[in-house]
């Protein structure tokens, strides 16, 4: 129980830290949002005094509140589920924008990460099992994949598969030319899968190497454990030894790392979403950053952190199920 309490304490503190960081960074750094937005609009052309006034109102002239009062307000707002209003997407509340974007990121990154994890763990286990074999010999080359910049791969994919060969779409989470927004039809689902293919492939390619290597190394270590020898001496079928005795134990550390890695993948997919104009959180965040949309920036950052925490939590729970040692830690 104490273990879980500690974990919960950890989550609480992390959350608090992330949220506070979120609050303070924009305020401590220089730059006046009003000027910036004005400059942006002016670049686009004529700007009327009305609009100007509008913007002033929109940003809510920084009231003469101390930073701590603002901090308190910020928390109060958060608890009401209020993340403010996006300036770039005025007047949409940030929560709504995030709500629209989140399923896309979760769907894509989630699926891709799971695929990558399963693939990496599977191949890694095999490589460790048949070590010295060609699968094993393949391992070093996968590190190459890991070192490729995500966006570079994505751009090349688009160039090759979408523009030159025209096999895959160039933008969007679905066919934005054919559908007027998400709908629950098979055609739409098909379109979503079709559009997710290249982005997912990018994620898988760039992240599978890590899992593979980690699993392979763990597998090699695990295979010299006494319980593996015992299992073999028991005359168990190799498949059984492989799955229940070796792979399952070897996967433990990878599983534990899964939550954190999810965070990295979410982060990596920021850039990837940008490249594919994928309607997810990452792109939203970059839009926010590019437009100095503080509320949106804070909101997306918060959500990403929350997502990572949630993933960690989930992993804690799952890990508890899979590894009896944590379960009974008391």
């Amino acid at each position, binding site marked *: 129980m104490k273990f879980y309490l500690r974990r919960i304490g*950890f989550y609480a*503190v*992390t959350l608090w*830290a*992330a949220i506070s*960081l979120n609050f303070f*960074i*924009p305020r401590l*750094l*220089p*730059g006046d949002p009003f000027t910036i937005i004005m400059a942006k609009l002016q670049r686009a052309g004529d700007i009327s005094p009305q609009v100007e006034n509008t913007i002033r109102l929109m940003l809510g002239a920084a009231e003469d509140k101390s930073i701590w009062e603002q901090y308190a307000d910020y928390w109060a707002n958060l608890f009401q589920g209020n993340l403010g209003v996006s300036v770039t997407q005025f007047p949409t509340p940030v929560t709504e924008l995030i709500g629209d974007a989140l399923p896309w990121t979760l769907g894509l990154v989630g699926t891709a990460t799971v695929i990558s994890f399963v693939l990496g763990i599977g191949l890694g286990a095999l490589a460790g*099992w*048949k*070590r*010295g*074999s060609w699968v*094993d010999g393949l391992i*070093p080359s996968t*590190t*190459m994949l890991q*070192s*490729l*910049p995500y*966006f*570079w791969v994505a*751009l090349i994919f688009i*160039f090759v598969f979408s523009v030159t060969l025209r096999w895959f779409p160039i933008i969007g989470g679905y066919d934005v030319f054919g559908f007027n927004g998400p709908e629950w039809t098979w055609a739409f689902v098909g379109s979503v899968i079709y559009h997710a293919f290249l982005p997912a492939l990018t994620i898988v390619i760039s992240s599978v190497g890590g899992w593979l290597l980690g699993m392979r*190394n*763990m597998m*090699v*270590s695990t*295979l*010299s*454990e*006494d319980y593996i*020898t015992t299992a*073999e001496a028991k005359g168990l079928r*190799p498949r059984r*030894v*492989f799955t229940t005795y070796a792979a399952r134990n070897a996967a433990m*550390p990878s599983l*534990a*790392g899964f939550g*954190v890695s999810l*965070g*990295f993948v*979410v*982060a*990596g997919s*920021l*850039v990837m979403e*940008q490249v594919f104009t994928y309607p997810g959180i990452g792109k939203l965040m*970059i839009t926010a*950053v590019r437009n*100095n949309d503080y509320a949106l*920036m804070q909101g997306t*950052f918060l959500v*990403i*952190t929350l997502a*990572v925490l949630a993933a960690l939590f989930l992993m804690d729970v799952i890990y508890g199920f899979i590894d009896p040692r944590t379960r009974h830690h008391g």
Partner: protein
Amino acid sequence: MAERRKRIPLTWSGKLVAGVVLVGGIILFAIVGPWVTQDPRSSDNPAMLPPEPGHWLGTTSLGYDTLAQLAEGARGSLLVGLIAGFIAIALALLIGVVGGYLRGWTDEFLSLVTGIWLVIPGLPLMIVIASYLEVRSLWVVALILGITGWPGAAVVLRSQARSLRVRDYVSAARVAGERTPRIILVEVLPNLLPLLAAQFLGAVLLAILGEAGLSYLGLGPNGSITWGTMLNEAYTGGALTRGAWWWFVPPGVMIALFGCGLSLINFAIDEVVNPKLRLAPAATKRVRKARRSGRDKLGRQEAAPAAADAPAAPGVDPHDDGDPHDDGDPTEQKEKVDA
């Protein structure tokens, strides 16, 4: 117990050789390249030349020589990587090793900080910080990458330091009257070296990739040439669609090659830290060889084909390195992989 093996020198395995050649080659390129190529900021060439003698990698839209830019970019990227790597490792060492060694509240606090920093997603944080910063020199970018890049290494080092802390030789040093800082520096740190090296290389790679990502988003270092800024310029200059692969592809390939080299070296280090990784595959190969030469009675009779490599016969086949005495501390390895 693991340290009994630690003294085994890095054997020059193929992987290590490949890694060192790659990394060394690229470093050499960064050092020598700018001397032998033209001024990377001289636009005094025709624009968008495809590769040809004199411009082995063609020119950019401004007429910069791509090879010269690549060489200068190697300096920039490596510099960012190294500085960020150093910062990250220094922080990781400070926070991980001190926490792991001292324990108690210090450790609790430091590992909480690490945990938080680990969870708060790095790239977004980097993006947010970078976007707020007005002037981003190479150093600033490296600093950002460094201060967001340490927690992974800190976790690994901490657990290792924790396990070293309870080693008898550390206790022995205390009994001998050594002071804590000296124990950390002289007794604990050298044993962390392989791990430290591995983490450092990882941090360097991460920083180089991070720099490329930031640059792609237009948040890279201003005023310097790195592989990241090259990619960014190639991208915004429409290199791909204009068919100027010689401008867009090489920086990415360089990053990948360098990363690959670092990973390969890390392989070798891993094999030092955890000898099983080296011994196990080697053992399998040796036995295969022995079988071919008929020295193994089991192998001789098993001349029948397929079975040789198939995992189908665990008794004959190879899932173990066989020396149960020399297991490193298993928890130690797990901790490493955990991170």
